[in-house]
Each structure stands twice: as C-alpha cells, then as structure tokens.
C-alpha cells in the first residue's frame, strides 16, 4: 500500500485538473488557427488536423501496446499535435506533420513514461527532429501567394531584388520570412557587402506599417506563428485564468526586446528594431504556449525568470548570429534541459534546518 502518493507536477487545485487546462489551451490556440485559415487557406487547417489526429493515435497506440491507461481524453496529445503543426510551413507536404507528431509523442513523451515525465517540450522536439531531417521542406514553401502579400508590404523590396549590388534571387523569393530577410540584409550590411537598397529594406522591415502586418499576421511564416494578435488573445485568457505563469513570457520577451534593441541594429549598439523582433517569428507562440509548459519549466518563481531570460538570450543570439533565422524553438529546448539545474539552484530555503557543513 502506498502511504504517501508522490506525484509529479502539475500539482493543481481549485478543481482545475489536467484535462481542463489542456482543453483550455486548445481553445485558446483556435484564434491562431483561424488566422492561419485566413492567410494561408484550407491546407494549413488540414495540416493542423493531421498533426492532431496523428498525435492522438500515436499516444493511444503506445499506451495500448504498453498496457497502460489510455489518456488521450486529457487533451495533452491534442495540444502537442496542434503546437507541432503550428511550427511547420503552411505548404509543407502532408507527411511532415504526421512524422513529426509520431516522433513528438513517441520519442518526446511516451518513451519517458507519458505526460509529466518528458524532459523537453514534445512539440518542440518534434519540430527540431523535422528540422534536422527535412531541412529543405521545413525552410521553404512559405507559398508564393504568401510572399506576394509579403512583398507588397515591404515596398522597396522589389527594387532591391532587381537592382544590382546585392541582389536576392531564386531561393529567397520563395522562402523569405521577415526574419529570414532581416537576418540576411543585416548580415550584408554589417559585413559591408550590401548595396544601397539593403538599408531601405531593413528600415522597411522595422517600420511601423510593417510591424502592423507582423502584428496581425500578414506575413510569411509557420502556420500558427504568424498572427501575434490571435496568439495574444488566447494567451490573455490563459494568463487571466492563471493557467500559465506570466513570469516566463514576460522575462522571455523582455530579454529579447532589450537584447535585440542593443545588438540587432545596423547603426551600432542600441539601434535594433524592438517591435520587429517581438512580433516576428515564433516568439509570441513560443513564449506564451511552449516555454510555459508546466512539465518542462522551473517550479520556482526565481527559476522561471532565469528560464525566460536564458531563452531570450539564446533566441537573440541565434537570430542575429546563428545559422538559422529563427531561434525560439532551439532556445526553449535548451532551456528545458537546464530546468532541473535551475530548480536546484533556486530551491527555496528550508526553515529549521542547518546547512550541512562540507567536509573538505
């Protein structure tokens, strides 16, 4: 007989339980899906549903095969499949979310014993796996239709393409996301190989009218990450209900804002486009929906701030100097792995005990 039943986090109260949190997360992710439908069409919704179904089926099959209780109704597999699909390009081949979801649930979660035992966020692990396996499919296919929306907003870009000096042809046209473009243009400017028009493009990208597009989601990007507005709407509900902790997203986004302002500009220190870095890429999605995963984030308040700041630092480093244009997923994965260390470091003092003296 078990006298003391020790369970892992999430420890919940107020009648709030895992299924309720998970299904709320699903509901708060729906606005982003609607935004994806508006900007990318039916196919992106189809990919998302494919991701969800595969994740749920994988979870059920593994749990049946290992003779454990089937827990697909708690919604955690749905969240994983949904977040994974949100992290792939809107015109990706259909098997991409399928393979990714199998890996995310199978290797990312069930192999460690299911919900609560996974060391890193399963959806992000699935994305990292897809990124390493099929980099071409994962970094292209932002769809040409999508790009046209992008060009018309970055006016001057077309001239930039046609002008000599620093042309961008071929691949970039079909693969450009704002971050992609910003990283490359900035790299050219800093290394001194850029033409006149590069400055125009960089300034266009950080102009307010373009930030507006970033905010609503009228840009190139992965299925679920483009519309900051839709994601913030969902995130607000989660924060209001205390289902997610505000310390992680705030310290995360704050660090990104400060560091990108300090390091991300083209006119020396402290000239970077803050809003551009906050609203582009997967930062909002990552900071509110993935970094806050209860299983893979620190339990102490101080630890959560450290977690957010570390993820922010890594994100900016990858965005500005890295080989990839976007670093949100890798930075969260790396910080996930540091969580046990952070928890140990920020453990609350236990009253009434004396610190054991070291015997050295």
């Amino acid at each position: 007989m078990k006298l003391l039943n020790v369970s892992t986090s999430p420890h919940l109260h107020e009648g709030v339980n895992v299924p309720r949190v998970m299904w709320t997360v699903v509901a708060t992710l729906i606005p982003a899906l609607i935004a994806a439908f508006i900007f990318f069409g039916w196919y992106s919704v189809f990919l998302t549903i494919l991701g969800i179904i595969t994740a749920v089926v994988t979870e059920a099959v593994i749990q049946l095969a290992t003779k454990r209780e089937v827990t697909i109704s708690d919604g955690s597999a749905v969240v994983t499949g949904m977040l994974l699909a949100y992290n792939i390009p809107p015109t990706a081949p259909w098997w991409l979310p399928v393979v990714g979801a199998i890996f995310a649930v199978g290797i990312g979660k069930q192999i460690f014993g299911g919900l609560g035992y996974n060391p890193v966020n399963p959806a992000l692990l699935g994305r990292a796996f897809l990124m390493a396996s099929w980099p071409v499919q994962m970094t292209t296919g932002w769809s040409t239709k999508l790009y046209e929306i992008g060009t018309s907003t970055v006016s001057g870009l077309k001239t930039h393409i046609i002008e000599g000096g620093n042309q961008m042809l071929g691949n970039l046209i079909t693969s450009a996301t704002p971050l992609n473009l910003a990283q490359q243009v900035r790299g050219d400017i800093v290394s001194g190989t850029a033409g006149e028009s590069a400055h125009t493009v960089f300034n266009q990208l950080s102009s307010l009218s373009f930030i507006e597009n970033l905010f609503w989601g009228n840009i190139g990007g992965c299925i679920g990450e483009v519309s900051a507005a839709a994601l913030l709407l969902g995130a607000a509900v989660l924060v209001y209900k205390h289902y997610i902790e505000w310390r992680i997203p705030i310290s995360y986004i704050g660090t990104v804002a400060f560091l990108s302002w300090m390091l991300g500009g083209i006119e020396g220190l402290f000239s970077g486009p803050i809003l551009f870095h906050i609203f582009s890429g997967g930062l909002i999605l990552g900071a509110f929906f993935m970094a806050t995963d209860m299983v893979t984030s620190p339990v102490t308040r101080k630890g959560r701030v450290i977690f957010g700041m570390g993820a922010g630092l890594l994100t900016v480093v990858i965005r500005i100097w890295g080989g990839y244009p976007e670093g949100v997923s890798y930075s969260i994965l790396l910080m996930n792995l540091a969580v046990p260390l952070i928890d140990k470091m920020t453990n609350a003092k236990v009253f009434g005990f004396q610190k054991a003296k070291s015997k050295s």
Partner: protein
Amino acid sequence: MKNILKPTGILLIICVISSTILSVLYSRTKPIIEANNKAAIEAARKAVLPDAVKESFTAVDVNNIASGQPDFEPDSILFYKGYNQAGELVGFTYKSAGQGYSSSTKVVTMVGINLDLKIDKIKIIKQQETPGLGANCTSTDFTQHFSHKDPSTIKVDKDGGEIKSITGATITTRAVTNSIRDEFLTIKKDMMKQLDKGAE
C-alpha cells in the same frame, strides 16, 4: 631494483618486437599508398580536364619551372598543366579550398581550366558538409553550373552571381564558388605566362 628492471625489460622487448613488425609493414605499404594517392589525384585532374592525357599533368611552381616530381607537392606549386595525346597544352588544373559549414574540414575543389581561361569542369574532392544539404555539392547537378564560366567573376546567386546555390546550403555553395574565384585570381598571371609560352 629488480622490481624496476624486470618490467622495463619486458616492455622494451614488446616495444622492439612490435616496432620491428610495424616498420617492415610500413616500408611495404608506403609505395602502394603513395601510388594510390597519386592515381586518385590524377584521376581527379583527368575528370576536370577530360581532353588531357592522365599521365601528362606537370606541376608549375612559383618560378614557372615544371618540376618532374608529381608526388612531391610543395606549397609553391600553383597549378598543373595538362597535355593531350599529341603533346599540345590543353589546359590547367588547380585545387582550391574554402571554409564551408564543417569547422574541421575545408571544401576542396579540383578545377579544370581551358585554354580560353574558362572553367572546363570542377570536382569536389574533399568535404565534410551536412549530409543531404551541403554534401549535395558533390553531385553533378551542382558542379555542372560551373562549366564554361569565367572563374574570375563567378558568384553565388544570392550575391548577385550566376551560380545557383544548393537549396538550404548557401554557405557551402559560397565556399566552393569563392574559393575557386580567389584561387584563380592569385594564379591567373602565371597561367597567362604559361599560355604565352605555349604559343611560342
């Protein structure tokens, strides 16, 4: 004292025996290994300059003296001259190395140059790039882009040039393209001298 001498003696015996065996084997395998290396590099030269005869390649070093020692390759060797069956000069080959995505191994390219100073063919002879991405640089789909181009002006498409980059591997493409160009620009003068000589 005996405690030290005995183990030392035994170690000495083992060392002597094994080094004897190894030195005999070394002297046996060394000529074969060198012959293999020479054959491999000659095959690479022939591949990028198909008009030339395999055995005809001769080195040109800084002083423009053709040295007759093909396996001896000092830094002063700039490029090789290739001759056809009739003994006429048909072109040059040189090696270029550029820093790709792998930190430890540079991308080494063998380049064949025709008499009109255009690229004949290129062949990647050494690389450690990412499989599926940069490693695709060895495929003819990629290397054929270089044929008949002027090596002094080639650039990657993203830098405004005509070399189509490998999808998702601009760094590798750039390493190959830029190294070919830079190396060519440093040896161009000497190559022209060789051309003048051939015309005499």
